[in-house]
């Protein structure tokens, strides 16, 4: 990098530097492609947007990192003091032209990333998560959507210490396993009965805190059939880690069939690992540090299973 | 508490004192202190603007006439303390003490007025966010007024040490600065709580 400041053009240095920059560009590009493999499967419309952005950032980041590390490696290899050499090096105190260049380049790079991100966010806003926050329980409102994308289904998500409950008001169904129809936009209405929770489905690349006292509307379109995990992402107390649930994305017909079957099923206690673990824990002679007792499991039509394999 | 520590001279035995720095340090402290109030003010504004029902049941607004009298007294004490400082610089100790004492009395009157107001209120600090922020803001400010009066008392006692103020005592300067600070905070507080209803 610094070699550009030498007065007379040093041809081998320029060639060497160009070759090395070329190699770094290739490596960065390759890393950018690799980045997709570090992420879970893409199961919503949001996922490709997020992943492309991340891949782009990985490429830029790799380039910056390699650039810095190359200079460090170079000086450690070729600019070491001789064993008994106590003398000082040539004192260069600065170079205004270089300062301007290395202020401008990062500025342009980060503003480029920011621009891309804002555009991606806008697209995400129309396709997926666009939060509408309002105080809990006022008049119903589904705004901000162009008519054709208006989500057909509304699912009420109730977070508790420590279980997830999903209600399908249209079909009069409740469940502790989330079922969604593929390619069908859905609105979640997130509410919490106690503390903060986080609604996080890694395969969908979406996450939204569930804030007690507010109802947050949140939209997603699943795009891939399969079983995924919903994880609590905002620390919510003792059984936070166990506060997970399955998300089943199925075809529209299967989904319809599931809803119908579920609506006929009797109410029964839903899944809550916290409740059973709490019972064993309290049975011990010294239960240990204090904990809030778990809320009783919600009464649901479909508890779901806790042991089916999931993809992400 | 920090305030008093700053006002005390360092240990004379081991260290050369740098009295000149006390005022610098104190001003830095005040700037920092103002951020706490800023935090409380913005919390108040945010909670108020987003509240569904701000006032607790049975409360319909705050009485503002008596607090207004209180405000006038407190704000004028900024003037009297400035006068006191002016006379100290003229080395007229008698008038200095007079005006200084007067500022103390006005501060005490303010605290008394606030106590009367508090005791007549229909709501406590657990009455929703309104009650909480009201007592938090006025209480925290009241604590500062009380501290100011204590500091003034200390400076008054010190003024009886012969020759104590001849070298230019920064304690008086700092105390009066603190008092102006407390006044400005009150004006903002008054506007936020009593005027913006």
């Amino acid at each position, binding site marked *: 990098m*610094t070699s550009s400041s030498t007065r007379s053009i040093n041809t081998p240095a320029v060639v060497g530097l160009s070759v090395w920059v070329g190699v770094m560009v290739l490596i960065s590009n390759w890393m950018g492609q690799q980045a997709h493999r*570090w992420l879970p499967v893409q199961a919503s419309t949001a996922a490709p*947007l*997020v992943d492309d952005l991340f891949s782009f*950032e990985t490429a830029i*980041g790799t380039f*910056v990192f390699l650039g810095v590390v190359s*200079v460090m490696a170079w*000086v450690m290899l070729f*600019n*070491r003091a001789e064993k008994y050499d106590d*003398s000082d*090096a040539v*004192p260069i*105190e600065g*170079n205004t032209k270089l*300062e301007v260049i*290395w202020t401008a*380049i990062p500025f342009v790079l*980060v*503003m480029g990333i920011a621009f891309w*991100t*804002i555009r991606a966010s806008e697209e995400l806003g129309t396709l997926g998560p666009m939060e509408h926050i309002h105080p809990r329980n006022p008049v119903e409102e589904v705004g901000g959507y162009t008519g054709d994308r208006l989500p057909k289904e509304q699912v009420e998500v109730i977070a508790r210490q420590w279980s997830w409950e999903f209600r399908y008001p249209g079909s009069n169904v409740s469940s502790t396993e989330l079922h969604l129809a593929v390619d069908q936009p859905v609105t979640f209405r997130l509410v919490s009965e106690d503390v903060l929770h986080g609604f996080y489905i890694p395969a969908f*690349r*979406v*996450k939204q*805190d569930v*804030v007690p*006292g507010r109802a947050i509307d949140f939209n997603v379109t699943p795009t891939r059939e399969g079983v995924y*995990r919903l994880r609590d*992402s*905002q620390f919510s*107390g*003792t*059984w936070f880690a166990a506060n997970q649930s399955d998300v089943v994305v199925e075809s529209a017909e299967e989904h319809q069939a599931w809803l119908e079957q579920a609506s006929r099923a009797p109410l029964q206690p839903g899944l809550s690992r916290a409740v059973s673990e709490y019972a064993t824990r309290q049975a011990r002679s010294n239960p240990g540090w204090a*904990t809030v*007792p778990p809320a009783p499991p919600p009464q649901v039509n479909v508890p779901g299973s806790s042991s089916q394999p*999931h993809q992400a | 508490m*920090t305030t008093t*520590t*700053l006002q005390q001279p360092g*240990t004379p035995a081991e*260290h050369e004192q*740098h009295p000149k*720095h006390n005022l*610098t*340090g104190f001003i*830095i402290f005040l700037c*920092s*202190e103002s*951020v*706490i109030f*800023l*935090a409380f003010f913005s919390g108040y504004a945010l*909670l108020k603007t987003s509240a*569904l029902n701000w006032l607790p049941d049975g409360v319909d607004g705050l009485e503002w006439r008596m607090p207004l009298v209180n405000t006038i007294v407190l704000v004028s004490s900024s003037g009297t303390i400035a006068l006191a400082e002016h006379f100290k610089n003229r080395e007229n100790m008698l008038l200095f003490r007079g005006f200084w004492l007067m500022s103390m009395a006005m501060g005490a009157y303010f605290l008394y007025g606030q106590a009367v107001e508090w005791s007549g209120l229909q709501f406590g600090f*657990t009455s*929703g*966010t309104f009650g909480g922020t009201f007592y*938090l803001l006025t209480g925290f400010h009241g604590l500062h007024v009380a501290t100011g009066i204590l500091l003034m008392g200390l400076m008054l006692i010190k003024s009886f040490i012969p020759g104590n103020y001849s070298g230019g005592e920064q304690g008086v300067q700092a105390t009066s600065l603190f008092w102006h600070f407390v006044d400005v905070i009150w004006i903002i507080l008054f506007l936020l709580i009593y005027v913006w209803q």
Partner: protein
Amino acid sequence: MTIATFPPEPKPEPGWGRYFSFCTDAKVIGIQYIVTAFFFFLIGGLLAMVIRGELITPESDLVDRAVYNGIYTMHGTIMLFLFTFPVLNGLNNLLIPTMIGAPDMAFPRLNAVAFWLVPIFGFLLMASFFVPGGPAYSGWWSYPPVSIQNPLGNLINGQGMWITAVALSGVSSIMGAINFVTTILRMRAPGMTLFRMPVFCWTALAAQSLQLIGLPALTGGAIMLLMDLTFGTSFYRPEGGGDPVLYQHFFWFYSHPAVYVIILPVFGIFSELFPVYSRKPLFGYVYVALASFIIVGLGLIVWVHHMFPSGVAQWMRNLFMVTTMLIAVPTGVKVFAWLGTLWGGKLRLTTPMLFCLGGLFNFVFAGITGIMLATVPVDIHVSNTYFVVGHFHYVIYGAAVMGIFAAIYHWFPKFIGRMPYEGLGKLHFLLTFVGANLNFLPMHPLGLMGMPRRVSSYDPEFTFWNVVASLGAFLLGVSIIPFLLNMLSAWIRGPKATHNPWNAIGLEWLLPSPPPEDNFGEDVPTVISRPYGYGTGQPLVEHQDEIERRLELQEAAA
């Protein structure tokens, strides 16, 4: 309890006693801070070992879930409030007065009070392990409503003690900040204008200004939290109309700037050490110095990047993303200036230099993951996952703690008067560098795959990287042994240090090692040029030859 915080077996050697007393000498206070901080570092590290022990298997099997939550909360709290801030204040105490030629801090008594608050709130925090119900367990953020749930309902509870301790830590830090800022502004040696001041002092000034602006907001927020917890107010309680998100704003308004309070002095350390060990002046001194204040300005307006998934409006997300990204610019100016300093130098890979180079490597990596976190859609996916944990351990352990180690090795001879051992130092570096990367790199794939942080159990697909991380962590635990060995043995019987063993330029190197209590006393030298005049042949102060000759004579006589 504080007695235990100091090196064991205090020999009846003269002088040890002052480390246990209310001494007002900044150099004594500096060492008190650093030793206390490392005592707590061991405790925080021990808790980290328990965390990694639990996470080496997917099930929650090593400790109870409630215990796990308490442990990670206390790990974060101890590492930040009882290790990082105290150790940096220790360096401030040692370096600021000696670097600017002041006899002491502006307010020596305030300084001592600020220090002694540390063992007091440290004790309070440790005591919370033993109250009924255990310590605070709601994370170092202590977000309500979890933090105000108080399951046992006792008046004295771990969470209440936690809030009190953090508030006391704030009081102590404010006292320190007033002192450091006043000292730097008012007590510089004759001739030392701001633009002749060492960069460490610039960064300390910048960092302490952030403390002064940010801390009161946290204190205010903490007072309200304590009232909600203890007196039943409802500032953050949704049932009473309160707003839990309000607390998040208060918390991050301080706690984001706090990360720059940590890293700025480390930038200062890098800027001091790279010139010494590459024998060249700091490249672009003025830009490096000023960039610190640009970071201060930007650092104050980015806090919402910790709350992207909390329920903030889209315009706010975009605005705070842009401000966050801009921080890469002044930081880049510094990074490139260091590279410019190294370029064409005559490098000596001593222990402090190795720690600086390793720290820079890790820092750039962490900065890049920071930029990824700043972009909203990516952050939405990885927020509150191990990706974030990886990001910040890279900065904090990989860059800040490594920079602190560099500083300790570099200035140890000056303030202790004895030389640390190079062999042990290099071993320490090697284990730290390898351990840290092995420990913290695997956290990034875990986060990308969707493993949340703060979990005591996880799905089996995350096992592989967790095992690697745990092994790295244990290596990191081992890495501390050569360090402690080095420090203790060098302190007790290391070779005597001359006044300037590294051939460095700076006022502190014109003092005997260790410096006398009042540093230069009456004859403070007059500064006549910029710092870092390596190779320029310009003396730093008037009569420099004379001063050095006198020091050499003294050393020869001893």
